[in-house]
């Protein structure tokens, strides 16, 4: 497994390099944003550890560039600024996990293992409906190429609608597939989630069929190029 470690502090870099090597990773190290971007762009890493406070280009910008260029390598961000607003902006830029300094080395290793397990087996057959794309194995969805940020319940709803696109699906059927057996079922739950989904994927993709349920269809004019 190849890992790119991006960290500007010399001592911390040395320690992490040692710990990662001991854990069996092949480690490359970058000490500033430019070098990090170059390496991440050219070398096929399995996972990247990215410090956010970097010289030349900051970590969030580097991450944004990678994601814009289509790099899907899982990225764990290290941040000294423990504030949630920093974590959120890291995620918005495309991070997969975060770790707040100071941290225990074992925790970093555990998180990396988890990231690698998750990323294994990405790129499988996707579902599509007009501009909507859904990758069931990676549990990711996008609309017109833009990644969607869905909660898992929203994702489940969209997944079910996409598997049965064009068909009217009743609320009861939807709520049964949304929740596990033991989850409580509120009557207006589906309306709430359909409302949130519409906010994220556009208001007209999910049609309300009065008295019957909901139906997912491509937008008029969109070709369904599955």
């Amino acid at each position: 497994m190849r890992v790119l470690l991006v960290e500007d502090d010399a001592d911390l870099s040395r320690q992490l390099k040692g710990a990662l090597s001991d854990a069996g990773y092949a480690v490359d190290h970058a000490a500033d944003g430019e070098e990090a971007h170059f390496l991440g762009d050219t070398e096929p890493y399995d996972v990247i550890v990215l410090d956010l406070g970097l010289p030349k280009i900051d970590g969030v910008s580097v991450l944004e560039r990678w994601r814009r260029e289509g790099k899907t390598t899982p990225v764990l961000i290290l941040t000294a600024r423990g504030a949630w607003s920093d974590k959120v902006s890291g995620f918005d830029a495309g991070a997969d996990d975060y770790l707040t300094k100071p941290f225990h080395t074992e925790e970093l290793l555990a998180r990396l293992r988890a990231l690698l397990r998750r990323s294994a087996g990405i790129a499988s057959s996707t579902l599509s409906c007009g501009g909507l794309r859904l990758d069931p194995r990676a549990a990711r969805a996008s609309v017109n190429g833009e990644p969607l940020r869905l909660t898992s319940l929203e994702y489940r709803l969209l997944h079910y609608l996409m598997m049965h696109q064009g068909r009217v699906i009743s609320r009861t059927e939807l709520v049964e597939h949304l929740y596990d057996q033991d989850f409580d079922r509120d009557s207006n739950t589906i309306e709430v989630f359909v409302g949130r989904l519409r906010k994220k994927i556009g208001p007209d993709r999910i049609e309300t069929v009065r008295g019957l349920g909901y139906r997912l269809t491509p937008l008029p004019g969109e070709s369904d190029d599955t």
Partner: protein
Amino acid sequence: MTDGSGGETGVASEPRTWGRWFGRPGRSLTRRLIWLASAWIVLALVLTGWALTNQYQESSLRRLGDVLANTIDQVVLATNAGADGRLTVGEVKDDRTLSPLQGKYWAVAEPGPDGRLRILVRSPSLAGESLTIPDELPARLAAARGAIISYNDPDGLRPGGEGPLGVPLRVAASMKQLPGRAEPVVFLAGIDRSNIDRDTQQFATFTWTALLILGLGLVIAVFLQVQIGLRPLYALRNEIADVRMGRASRIARSYPLEIQPLAEQVNRLLDHNQETVERQRTHVGNLAHALKTPLSVMLAEAGQQKGPLPDIVRRQTEVMKAQVDHHLRRARAAARAQMLGEITPIEPVLDEMAVMLERVFEEKGVVIDWRSPENLAFRGERQDLQELLGNLLENACKWARRRVRVSAGSTGLGQMIVVVEDDGPGLPEDQREAALQRGSRMDETTPGSGLGLSIVVELTRAYGGRVSLSDSELGGLKAVLELPALEA
């Protein structure tokens, strides 16, 4: 505030209500403007009324004077002095002087040896009555020979006060020298004044009524004008109150030329305030960054070695980390206390937190089921709401087996309640208090810092809210957060 104490510190002998409305008008702009304008209006109207009625009366009397002078001229022309000095008055062609009590009278008199006037001839209309002659008249006539002296005869014809004889007269008198007679002769003419008096009276009544109505109208107009004119000030006051209450972040309306600079200065002050807070926060963040990387190094280094020294270093590093966190939070809270007018809708923050934390805990398959009214907003900063919800949700995700449930709702009293529950093992009652204490860790084996809940407690307190822990029906811990809110 100033109004309330003003009554007390004002002139002590004044009754309160008097002091409120009439005393120290300088305390209220409205009162000052209204009193000033009213005083001026009353003064101007009184002067106008006095001048108008006076002018009207003067001109009426002048008209009567012309008539009387004409009558005197006629009588003078008709009067002849005989060789013996006797006076004869020929025909005076004025119908109203011919028959008794027709309203117009004349008489010819001469000064007697006692200085009084003795009437020699009188008009038929006088019917034997006499015109009232004031005592000082002869002297005045003598002093201004040929001139006409007019006066009011209030009692009318003698014996006055009864019937048509009681009518008030205007009398004119003139002393003339007739050819062929050594002694001067006094000609008197009188005319009924009652019509003129009535007209003058009516004019005065009309004038004063009209002026009173005009005055009242003007005072009301001034009152309205002041109220409307000062309305932007009240609006500005309300907007500033809104900013203070957190219902708005800036003065947004545009104001009249005179107040706009004030509104802009207030906005500039708010900006300055915000900048100061941002600067403090940046410093605090920089300090955090500067300290935390070295702490990470020490922690990692100590972790790689065995023995008493690394143990001490590791423990002390943990303490330092807790201290840094604690004091940075205090500094941030102090900066926050100066923040005004921030509003953060809760739904987007819950959404981004849920998406992010489900991703982080993806391996475990945690499902975050959150509900919030769309129009519910937190009266505070976004960063703080992220901090509050992030820590509570992360904590719940950490302990949950599969499920985390979040529901937010307004209490309708400017407060909202956020409930975060999980289906984890929960927390025994005797440990809950400790879990909310600073720096305590609930479980050393769960990765991450145990500081999450204490941050939540401190932040909530800074906003005047509350946190409490109890059992959830899902089986785990239930955290209830009370925060200031705004329902749009």
